[in-house]
């Protein structure tokens, strides 16, 4: 019954892509919020070293022991980085940029040296081979399940479980580390656990998307989600939705243009981020512009109301409270003056009688709200 499902190659590829995205979003959300996004870059690169070592030692590429072993190199990177920072000789960003290239370099050289013994070439290291995940299968209950699907599924479950169980603690440790510490939640330990899971996810995702594209899956969907919402749980939801959409759209575009599937999926996460950046409901660039324009218009209306209110019922009213006078007294050009008067009339703040502008009760209320704020 399930056999056609596992024989469906496109489905398998997209599923692996989705799982990479979902598992990465689960850990990436906290990394982005903590401002440690670039650690995923460092981890992604340095697990290459771990993967090669583990392969040379055990001659097996997948399995829990292999994943944990290789993931330890990710943790090693973080540990060495903090060690360097603690000597106070090197700043944090420089320390990150010193440690991972070394481990990555050793990994690449080992690949060069043992090229015949190792299942991966340097190309795969960077790009992954998500298009070929269906080639490497294990039989479960008689069905040929892709190895990548299995390990990514396991990592997704593990990450999901970690986030669910420690949601409260992670939330507190992310937004208020000192309080978390004071309450005895050991934010440091939690963070290391999070990084261990990030490394594990990187190792599991390595065959599919390689070392660098992994970074896109960790950072970009949570960042896009961060631009869309203020709620942590919604960030997870949006991040996962973006991962799924990127995986599906990336697959079809890649097939249509005959390009790297993993690369295209990562590019699509970027496209969604750009969309969120431009058109997000509250933090989007367009929303910001609209808000600013609304604010400006409101100010113009208020200025007009105050001006009219000041001269209301006074002798010079006939001279002051006409559209023409606004040019001189408020330094508005003719077009602007006409536009503001027009808008104020439409909104029922101002009435025009011949040339003379009158405030309506609503318009007067606006002016008094500004001039006599104490009464409001």
């Amino acid at each position, binding site marked *: 019954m399930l056999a056609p499902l596992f024989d469906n190659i496109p489905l398998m590829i997209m599923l692996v892509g989705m799982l990479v995205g979902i598992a990465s979003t689960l850990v990436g959300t906290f990394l*982005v919020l903590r*401002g*440690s*996004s*670039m650690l*995923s*870059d460092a981890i992604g*690169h340095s697990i290459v070293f771990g993967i090669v070592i583990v392969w040379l030692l055990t001659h097996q590429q997948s399995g829990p022991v292999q994943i944990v072993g290789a993931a330890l190199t990710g943790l090693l990177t973080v540990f060495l980085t903090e060690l*360097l920072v603690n*000597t106070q*000789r*090197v*700043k944090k*960003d*420089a320390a*990150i*940029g*010193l440690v991972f*290239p*070394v481990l*990555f*370099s*050793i990994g*690449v*050289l080992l690949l*060069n*040296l043992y*090229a015949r013994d190792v299942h991966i070439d*340097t*190309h795969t290291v*960077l*790009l992954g081979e998500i298009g070929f995940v269906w080639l490497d299968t294990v039989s479960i209950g008689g069905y040929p399940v892709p190895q990548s699907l299995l390990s990514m599924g396991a990592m997704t479950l593990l990450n999901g479980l970690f986030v669910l169980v420690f949601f409260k603690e992670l939330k507190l440790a992310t937004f208020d580390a000192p309080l978390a510490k004071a309450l005895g939640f050991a934010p440091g330990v939690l963070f290391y656990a999070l990084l261990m899971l990030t490394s594990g996810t990187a190792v599991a995702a390595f065959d599919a998307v390689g070392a*660098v*594209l992994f*970074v*896109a899956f*960790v*950072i*970009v969907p949570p*960042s896009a989600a*961060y*631009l869309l919402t203020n709620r942590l749980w919604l960030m997870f939801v949006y991040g996962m939705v973006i991962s799924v959409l990127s995986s599906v759209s990336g697959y079809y575009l*890649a097939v249509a*243009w*005959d*390009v*790297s599937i*993993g*690369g*295209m*999926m*990562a*590019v699509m*996460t*970027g496209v969604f*981020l750009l969309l969120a*950046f431009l058109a997000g409901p509250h*933090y989007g*660039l367009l929303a*910001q512009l609209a808000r600013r324009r609304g604010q400006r218009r409101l100010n113009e209306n208020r200025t007009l109301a105050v001006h009219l209110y000041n001269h209301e019922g006074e002798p010079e009213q006939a001279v002051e409270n006409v559209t023409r006078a606004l040019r001189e007294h408020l330094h508005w050009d003719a077009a602007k003056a006409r536009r503001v008067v027009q808008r104020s009339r439409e909104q029922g703040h101002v009435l025009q009688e011949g040339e003379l502008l009158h405030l309506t009760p609503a318009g007067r209320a606006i002016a008094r709200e500004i001039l006599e704020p104490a009464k409001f």
Partner: protein
Amino acid sequence: MTILDWLQDYTIQNVVIGAALLGLISGVLGSFAVLRKQSLLGDTLSHAALPGVCIGFLIAGTRNIGSILFGALVSGALAALLMLALTRNSRLKTDAGLGITLSTFFALGVVLLTYIQGTNNAAQGGLDSFLFGQAAATLRSDLWIMGGITVAALGLVSLLWKEFKLVSFDPSYAASLGLPVVWLEVLLTVMIALAVVVGLQMVGVVLMAAMIIAPAVAARQWSHRLEGMVLLAAAIGVGGGVFGALLSALSRGLATGPLIILSVSSVVIVSLLFAPRRGFVWEIVRLRRSRRRLRYQQVLTTLYQLAAAHADSRYRSGQGMIDTYHGTSTQRALRKLHRRGYVVRHAAPPEEPNTAGQWVLTPAGIHEAERILDSLGREAL
């Protein structure tokens, strides 16, 4: 092959010159990047160069180094701009901005790379070498371009030396002097993109980050002056670059990038450990020395205060009691005090044999203890 043969070998000449140029430009510009806490910008700019490499190739139709490097420069600059736009106009922080541009530009590069491979263009061979670098593929004509870029960048740095220095250390003061701080910062960023462009051929896009950071961090340990740091970083960059590139050219099948990075990084490790004053080893030695001196002074003043409390300048203190008082073994400190003649062992009279070995202050010891206490200020005790 003898050394003379080596030096006359065309490929090796190219490799050495190319690596030297790379070391020079990345050492100098990296110093500014590290001082301005923009180390990871090099990482982002180098990854972001990949789509530019591919587009340059697509436009030129051949592996024309000029158009490839120009493409790399443009896409690096675009990435920097995008990163600024993202962090200035949204609530994303710098690290997220760096990571986003790094990974999505690189992904775009991967997509373009596979697109080019799909077109079966015969000239595409060698584009892969921009991932990890392939020093042996360097041509004489490439060197002219790399050299031109390096000379231009170094010329700019020496022309605007004072301005760059000020912007790196105190941007707000620079702004108050009326310097165009934003433009200077943009210029420094663009020049890092230039260094990345020079390095593409030698170390590749992935490891270029370390080439920006490592020489500068190593040089920082040896010098407290910007002049010294920049010169030293250039020297370390050139040395590490040439050494790594030679290793790669002489060994078959070892990628150049990793070898260069490892040789430069070993200079970093040595510098962090052994540089005078800042070296970590010296600090540990200093720390141990001062801890030991402190212990020795503590023991001496303890003996003095015991004597004072008992109003007996020849008061005898047992070793065990002093140990208990300090919560640790004081044997070493006492031996040192004994060597300097500040304490002597009590020669026990026959009627009190169990007082043998107890410590007694000498007049010199009393004098020394008073001097230490005076220097600390007695009221503090």
